[in-house]
């Protein structure tokens, strides 16, 4: 999509494809969860990845992090991380633990439940610090304490077991852990889906404050277009494993180009507006046998012949706006 020479680009993916090999009724089938996705993330920005359940957003994030465990396989493509003018090819890296947490961090889904229930929170912090820094336990504890206090959390938190904290608090602790080593790229997978809106606002504000302070890159996966509108600078819209639209958040909400993006945004009711909204008919395709051509054509109100035959190219609209739809191909 864009050459890697742009110094602002910190993470670049080219033709990324991956999915799952699973057994269904004694047959090995391939679930085509991420299919030729191209995008880039820049320094000091919040990039949102949006789409509905099963569109491949979480799979994409796992591949970006290089967390590839069976049945997940990567078919082709590359993920390049650029740290201090050095390019790191995430997918061919032998020992990813050297980049994880230090350069690139991952906040998984249900992050409130990833803490070890038998360990005090201090031990989580100490272990992380000592994996990457050559310090003794006391030193590590002091670092952790200062860090926790700098985030406005009480140091008492460190002595608690995970079950003693509320969900929102645990979520903030996991985020704190993920950001402790000042990574250049933070990957967050639905970091606030299980909490209330008031807590959600607090947690996301903390994530944003930290991003601004470190001037790094936050890649935020969420299906919630409200959160996308409140938090992100740019959005990648995914549908059935494809990146269908990429652009600045304001532009996407003001003038959605792809029919899927348009349906997604226009189906959302807003307070103060009771006009009739229409949802999308049908459902996303089965990714073990995706439809030919454009994967959105069975649900698209504008589907043409070419949409059923050929996959649409990615079209550069200008101003960092990209859309993958035959409607925008000039012929």
């Amino acid at each position, binding site marked *: 999509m864009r050459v890697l020479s742009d110094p602002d680009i910190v993470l670049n993916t080219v033709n990324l494809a991956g999915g799952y090999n699973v057994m269904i009724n004694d047959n090995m089938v391939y679930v085509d969860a991420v299919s030729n996705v191209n995008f880039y993330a820049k320094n000091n920005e919040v990039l949102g990845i949006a789409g509905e359940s099963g569109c491949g957003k979480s799979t994409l994030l796992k591949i970006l992090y290089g967390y590839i465990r069976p049945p997940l396989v990567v078919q082709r493509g590359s993920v390049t991380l650029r740290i201090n003018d050095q390019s790191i090819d995430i997918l061919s890296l032998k020992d990813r633990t050297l980049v994880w947490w230090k350069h690139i961090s991952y906040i998984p889904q249900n992050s409130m439940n990833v803490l070890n229930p038998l360990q005090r929170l201090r031990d989580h912090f100490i272990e992380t610090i000592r994996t990457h820094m050559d310090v003794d336990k006391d030193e590590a504890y002091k670092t952790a304490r200062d860090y926790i206090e700098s985030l406005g959390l009480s140091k008492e938190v460190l002595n608690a077991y995970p079950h003693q904290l509320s969900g929102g608090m645990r979520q903030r602790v996991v985020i704190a852990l993920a950001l402790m080593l000042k990574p250049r790229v933070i990957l967050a997978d639905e970091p606030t889906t299980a909490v209330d809106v008031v807590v959600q606002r607090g947690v996301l504000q903390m994530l944003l404050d930290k991003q601004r302070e470190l001037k790094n890159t936050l890649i935020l996966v969420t299906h919630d277009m409200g959160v996308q509108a*409140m938090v992100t600078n740019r959005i990648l819209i995914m549908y059935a494993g494809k990146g269908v639209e990429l652009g600045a958040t304001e532009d996407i909400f003001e003038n959605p180009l792809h029919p899927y993006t348009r349906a997604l945004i226009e189906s959302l009711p807003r307070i103060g507006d009771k006009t009739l909204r229409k949802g999308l008919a049908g459902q996303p395709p089965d990714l073990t046998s995706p439809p030919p051509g454009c994967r959105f054509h069975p649900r698209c109100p504008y589907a043409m012949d070419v949409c059923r035959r050929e996959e649409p190219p990615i079209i550069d609209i200008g101003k960092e706006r990209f859309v993958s739809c035959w409607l925008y191909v000039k012929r």
Partner: protein
Amino acid sequence: MSEALLELKNVVKIFRYGLFGFEFRAIDDVSISLEDKPFIFTIAGESGSGKTTLARIILGVHVPEYGEVLYKGRNIHKLKGEDLVWFRKEVQAVFQDPYASFNPLKKVYNYLYETAKNVAKIKTDEIDAHIEEVLKRVGLSLEKVKGKYPSEFSGGELQRVSIARALITRPRLILADEPVSMLDASLRVTIVNLFKEFKDDLKISFIYITHDLSTAYYISDYIAIMYRGWVVEQGPVDKVLTEPKHPYTQTLLLSAPMPDPKWREKWLKAIKLTGTIEEKEFLAKGCKYAARCPYATKKCLENVPPDFIANSVKVKCWLYEK
């Protein structure tokens, strides 16, 4: 005033937890009156506010310790035998997770058949025609449903089936507990549109339980906002959600992310998360929201606020004392 369809009078539900049977009021002195004409009434609140407990009380699953629930003037927790079947016929429910509502080993059609036979008491030879009719209402057909297990449906389709099942008994009231929160955003509106349509065409009233204020605004006529077992504000949805009176409703509305970047500036204004522990709020002596409220005074900490009327909305807050 015409007779109310559903009336909750000072309902209290006490739960116990912990080793020593520590008590707290999950529903605390809730009164709601819904008139007998088609309406959609939303009960909104966050997790732990008591909305599902209230739903279970209305369905007769939980029996309140104090107060009573009257449906068409009859106390639903005292119904027996034929009267209970009548109540089940009149009031139906749709739940959050359609995959959890259906037994995965049982064909979906059997649920429809059994409801038609046992609750609606439809004659055996008319059952299929009736089922076909309700399935058509939700955009499905008997052909698509017959012989299939729940796992063969998508979430949106299965939720439609559970709505169709609720329609079989020709109910007057359907209680829908978070019916769209498991569904994708683009499907949600198609489900809530059905509720609107059934209200207008079939004269069915709905109690819609949700934490999502935007769909609540979109479909409902009235709304009650719950907080820690209390209804803190209730009234017409146009008033409550556009000119919120209670400080909690105000925070809630400001915190809900809106799908419009123009709201960003307001939303990004820093919010302080307190470390208050839930059970302490349930047990607070005065207003349960006082610990978080920016306007809290000594009075709020000491005394439980009664309902005041402000802008024809009931608000449980001392700020509106006349």
